[in-house]
């Protein structure tokens, strides 16, 4: 067996996993705080990807040619605007329905998801959007006897390093800042949190905003990594990132990261050794298996019903 090939797939899988992990965090955070899935999260990621795409092209047009600066500007803008989308989704589809019946927010979020998908399709066109590689080159790590060269591209390094940096920043935010404390308080008991002066509405809104900002980063990474996006990418990425969140244990941040990496690895290895066509089926099968055998996930705690 060709070890070099395997190593290459592991590298690719981890890169992909970093992207899923960033999206999965959005699912897991929103779930933690309101106990509901944000069905529109996949589309938020897609919007983030499109904003990055537009940003990169505009940077080229206005002559910002130094790549690190251009990417930094695009990243910040995409995060900011995508975060605003997250905020708007919470405002429109979730907050007015907080007292409504159980399915209401889920249905309205599905509505938002359908709306966003078609909105981007209409505004930007249905065709896939390819762009030229922005970050080129990489290291050649080793070459096998068969002549297969394992490469670690600069882009992959960029993706993994950026993900790790965001994780560190994020962990700091959750554990060390007043906002993070408010979030954890709302997760435990929303009524109690509001009684002791936590602005619950604001905290929930900020959770959506942070999830969306991370999804925007994931969207930008995917734009750079695959070099082509379309309006439909949010759908499957959403299901996969959700699978990652469930696999890691929904509600758990380290779980989301672990789940994302595992899903990325599984997808890469499945595509490499079995069939590319059925990679999505494989991920879906994992979702169902996890739900059957370990619904609380790898790092999640079993839910205790309040009777």
């Amino acid at each position, binding site marked *: 067996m060709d070890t070099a090939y395997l190593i290459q797939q592991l590298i690719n899988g981890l890169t992909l996993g970093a992207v899923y992990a960033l999206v999965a965090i959005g699912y897991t955070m929103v779930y933690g705080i309101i106990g509901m899935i944000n069905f529109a999260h996949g589309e938020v990621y897609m919007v983030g990807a499109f904003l990055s795409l537009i940003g990169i092209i505009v940077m080229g047009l206005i002559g910002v040619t130094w790549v690190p600066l251009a990417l930094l500007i695009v990243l910040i803008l995409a995060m900011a605007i995508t975060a605003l989308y997250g905020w708007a989704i919470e405002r429109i589809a979730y907050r007015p329905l907080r007292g409504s019946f159980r*399915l209401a927010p889920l*249905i309205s979020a599905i509505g938002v998801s*359908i709306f966003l*998908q078609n909105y981007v399709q209409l505004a930007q*066109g249905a065709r896939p959007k390819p762009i030229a590689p922005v970050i080129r080159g990489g290291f050649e790590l080793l070459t096998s006897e068969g002549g297969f060269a394992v490469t670690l591209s600069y882009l992959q390094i960029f993706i993994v390093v950026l993900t790790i940096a965001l994780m560190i920043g994020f962990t700091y935010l959750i554990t060390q800042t007043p906002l993070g404390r408010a979030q954890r308080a709302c997760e435990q008991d929303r009524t109690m949190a509001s009684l002791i002066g936590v602005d619950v509405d604001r905290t929930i809104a900020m959770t959506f905003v942070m999830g969306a900002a991370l999804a925007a980063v994931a969207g930008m990474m995917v734009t750079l990594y695959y070099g082509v996006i379309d309006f439909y990418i949010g759908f499957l990425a959403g299901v996969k990132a959700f699978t990652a969140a469930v696999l890691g244990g929904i509600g758990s941040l380290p779980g989301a990261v672990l789940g994302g990496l595992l899903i990325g690895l599984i997808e890469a290895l499945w595509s490499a050794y079995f069939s590319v066509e059925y990679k999505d089926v494989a991920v*879906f099968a994992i979702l169902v298996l996890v739900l059957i055998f370990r619904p609380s996930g790898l790092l999640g705690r079993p839910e205790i019903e309040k009777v």
Partner: protein
Amino acid sequence: MAVADLNAATRPAPATPFQAALKDAALVALVAMALAGPIVGLQTVDRGGSLTVDARFAEVAVGIVIVFFGRLGLALSDRGLRLPSYGIAAGLAAAGFLLPWPTDLLGVLAIAAGAALVIRGLAGQYGAHRQSKAALATETDEEKADRLRRLFTRGLGFLLLAAAVLLPMMPFANSYILDTAIRVLTYMMLAWGLNIVIGLAGLLDLGYVAFYAVGAYTYALLSKDHGFGFWGALPLSGLFAASFGVLLGFPVLRLRGDYLAIVTLGFGEIIRIVLLNWTNFSGGPNGIGSIPRLTFFGHPFVRNAPEGVVPFHQLFGLDFSPLHRSIFFFYLILVLALVVNVFTIRIRRLPVGRAWEALREDEIACRALGINPTNTKLTAFAIGAMFAGFAGSFFATTQSFVSPESFTFLESAMILAIVVLGGMGSQLGVALAAILVIGLTEAFRGLAEYRMLVFGLGMVLIMIWRPRGLLSHRDPTILINSGKGVRP
């Protein structure tokens, strides 16, 4: 519009209602600009093999102005300034008709915003009026209103049924009308089936179309490769779809409701992927063609039948007309849809139907009453899937062609939209919604590309303003006091 009470919570004490409304509208316009500016204003286009960006700032700017005035009207109306709000509505509508817009869509948007303002205002006034009346209402008034409502729904239901039965006999019933009516009835049947799952049992199934696909493909393969007739293949397709429902539902229905939603969402997509890629089995993207067309109990709808077969028109001594087939299909789907309807009405009054509704309301209480939640949900899920399978069989035999194209998420979304609009649990409401949704998509064929956009927006707005849908009243399934309408 959807951004109702956008900053009601955080607003500091405003100077005057008008200023507050102005500030509110300005803020919403600003947010809209940030959201839409880059995505709508900068369109990526492929030029000479590489992507570049075309600016559409004028359109965005005009759109933002419409949003500003629309929100201003809404904010004024919410603060009791109805007259200025109607003024803005009139202005928007007039501008929509008169001004030369950069694209037609913006004109439509302006008119729609004006109309929405008027409707919202009137609905608000009517609601206030009703509330003031309701405070004074006596018991007899309530009873009268109740009777009137029952009479209305029953009358409307009867009227719809009569219209459906008579439709093919009307002189204007050409093949376009009949085909559209068949489409309406197919969606009605699907929506009634989904209504059992969502409306009664409260299970959010986002991949309903997958069962429709299973039914259609089962029918196609059974009738084409195994020589089954319609009446043999129909129940088998339904049963097969139901067993898919059981297989999928069993692991997931034990868990929280949201998991079901996302698993069914994924399942719908997976079925499509499998159908696309498993070419030996499903024909891949090309689908399965030349599925035997349905005959009238052995008598085909053709001008010249092969030796020994009597075509339909000869059997009845009619001249051949291609409409006969459509008329037969129409009545067939009408009967199938009515079967679903009657089934639902009856099963609601059975213990299992009551258990579904009880589960929707409070699963923990159900468990404390000894009801097996998983099995009960599973029956709802499987029955819903079975009806989708029936509808799929019908689809396969009328089209004589199935391909993965027909079973996208958009179909699921459309059926869901019908159920949501109609009022979850209301049979008549769902029927009206099916007519409305399919009718409107037919009427606005020119704007077909905006269809799903409107559905998505519609789902959000309905959840906010009328979460129980068009017809939301629920009648008890059994009465103990008073003889009126005890059990039909």
